[in-house]
């Protein structure tokens, strides 16, 4: 990396830290809650991107893992009253374990078959969430207050040096802190032996196994990591919303996760985060703007307009910008780095 690039990266890092500290002080509670949801989705999407954008597997089952995490948050956090690090760790274990099971079941499947089996995971999940009220509260769902303390900081009632902060402000710091931690873990995983094995499996499964990579292990570990991060997102979601209904973990949620990864740019660290902000923010923006739009005259509801926009965004990005927002940004930033990358890398991963 040359000197200007290092300087630029440092500038970006400083800007991010400033935004992290200052945004909650500058933005209102509504804007913060939008960003909090975007952050929660970013955590799950980073996990999905490791599976989809790095290990090259297909999954439409991410909603299931988010549900798993939410019910871990409900049972261990709200019901049992365990501390936040404990229920977060439990979400990692539960999501990772179930992810590994799904990975094991799908070892021999590829393409369309794999997609459908992961759709099945979502349906099995919906059945369990609706029919096992002891864990999930059944069809009515269940709510509760999960402890959210980290050392002396209680993010439900943040009070630092005599200054009290609103719930939105505190949860913004908590959630985006977790996003940063997740991104750091993901960045290191990608460069680890496991991450390189994922990449090899994505490029060419048979070739990977021919050079001695344990393909099964790579796939199962990718599913496990994705499941674990999906569950973390779910448990944080429960902690923030304080309620989990069984039908939230639907196939459409999975589709949204995949869309976040693709619109943001799969196989790139910034991709899922950018995607989560754009796809999480757009519907809220449309709601805010809808009073000024002539949609009533056209017979459109806001919800329907949002669906339409979502679908069009997905189609347009996949068709016209396969690298997503992050890829487009990289390309716009100039050819030098792009030229040095091995031919084909990134562009075909979408």
């Amino acid at each position, binding site marked *: 990396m040359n000197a200007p690039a290092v300087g630029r990266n440092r500038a970006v890092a400083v800007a991010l830290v400033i935004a992290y500290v200052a945004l909650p002080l500058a933005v209102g509670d509504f804007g913060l809650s939008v960003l909090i949801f975007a952050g929660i989705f970013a955590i799950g999407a980073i996990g999905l991107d490791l599976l989809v954008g790095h290990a090259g597997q297909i999954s439409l089952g991410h909603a299931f893992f988010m549900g798993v995490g939410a019910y871990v948050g409900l049972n261990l956090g709200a019901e049992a009253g365990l501390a936040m690090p404990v229920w977060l760790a439990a979400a990692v274990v539960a999501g990772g374990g179930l992810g590994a099971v799904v990975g094991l079941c799908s070892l021999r499947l590829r393409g369309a078959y794999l997609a459908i089996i992961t759709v099945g995971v979502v349906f099995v999940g919906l059945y369990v969430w609706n029919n096992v009220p002891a864990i999930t509260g059944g069809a009515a769902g269940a709510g509760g207050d999960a402890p959210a303390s980290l050392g002396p900081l209680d993010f439900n009632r943040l009070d630092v040096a005599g200054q009290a902060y609103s719930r939105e402000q505190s949860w913004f710091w908590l959630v985006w802190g977790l996003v940063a931690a997740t991104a750091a873990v993901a960045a290191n995983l990608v460069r680890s032996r496991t991450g390189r094995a994922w990449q090899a499996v994505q490029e060419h499964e048979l070739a990977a196994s021919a050079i001695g990579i344990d393909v099964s292990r790579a796939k199962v570990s990718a599913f496990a990591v994705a499941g674990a991060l999906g569950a973390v997102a779910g448990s944080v979601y429960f902690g923030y919303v304080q309620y989990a209904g069984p039908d939230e973990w639907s196939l459409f949620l999975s589709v949204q996760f995949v869309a976040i990864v693709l619109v943001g740019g799969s196989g790139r660290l910034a991709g899922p985060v950018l995607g989560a902000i754009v796809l999480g923010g757009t519907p809220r923006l449309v709601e805010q703007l809808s009073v000024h739009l002539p949609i009533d005259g056209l017979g459109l509801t806001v919800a329907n307009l949002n669906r*339409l926009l979502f679908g069009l965004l997905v189609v347009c990005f996949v068709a016209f910008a396969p690298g997503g927002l992050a890829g487009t940004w990289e390309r716009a930033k100039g050819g030098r780095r792009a030229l040095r990358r091995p031919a084909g890398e990134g562009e075909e991963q979408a």
Partner: protein
Amino acid sequence: MTKLVQLVVAGIAIGSLYGLVALGFVVIYRASHVFNFAHGSFLLLGCYLTYCFHQQLGIPFFAALGLAALAAAAAGLIVERVALRRMVGQSVFAVLMITIGLAVVIDALVVWGWGAERLSLGDPWGLTTFRLGGDGGVRVAALDIARLVAAGGVLAAYQLFCRFSTLGIAMRATASDQEAAVASGIDVRRVFAVCWAIAAATATVAGVLLASGARGIDPTLSAVALAAFPALVLGGVDSPAGAIVGGIVLGVVEVLAAGYLPGWLPGRLGDNVHTVVPYVVLLAVLLVRPSGMFGDRERARL
């Protein structure tokens, strides 16, 4: 015993419908290896077009169905031309995702056009039922017979088309080896376009057979495509006959599960259990045969 037979008959009827839906997936997958998640949305569109022609314009039911199938086929052509053609050579996942995006768009457009309330598609079948085996025998509704006949008829027509028409032979050639097909002068793009048109028209027929009568149409109808997934995979995503067989097998399994399992399972575990049983069966089959019962084994080369 009567309950068992009655359930099997109901299962065959609903299963042939799943098979018909699955056949639409197979037609596209075989030729272009695109797994079309928008299939349920074409089904939805076809139903609403039938509604438009029959209820809003007053065209007789079966004529309206025919017109709607043609219109849906045209929509299939347009979608293939505008969105899918530029995806040739892209990763499986990107193509899959574009069809999901299209599904969301089509569903939203249908809601925009006709609203989200349940509408009646009309009922040409009435409550006509036939009794097999005299009094106390098994009752079969006219609609169920229509479903079975349509599934068999469409499958037969498709197979005949593939065997005897030039275009059908071109489709088979494309399915077996795309490059060789291009090399021997087959217009592969036209083949893809025709496949999308056929799939959209079959989806319309399947949708109308599902929704006419008591069911009615509403935007949730597109979810039937999800219910047909297990049938599709069970049969093998590239086998037309497998789709129908898989559909009937899973229809019977689903109806039997809905009929018996709730009584056997403790607590609330019986509620909606029939929605997951197909996937459990599917998983069991795929663990043994990863390409379904009749699917082509995938061969890999380094």
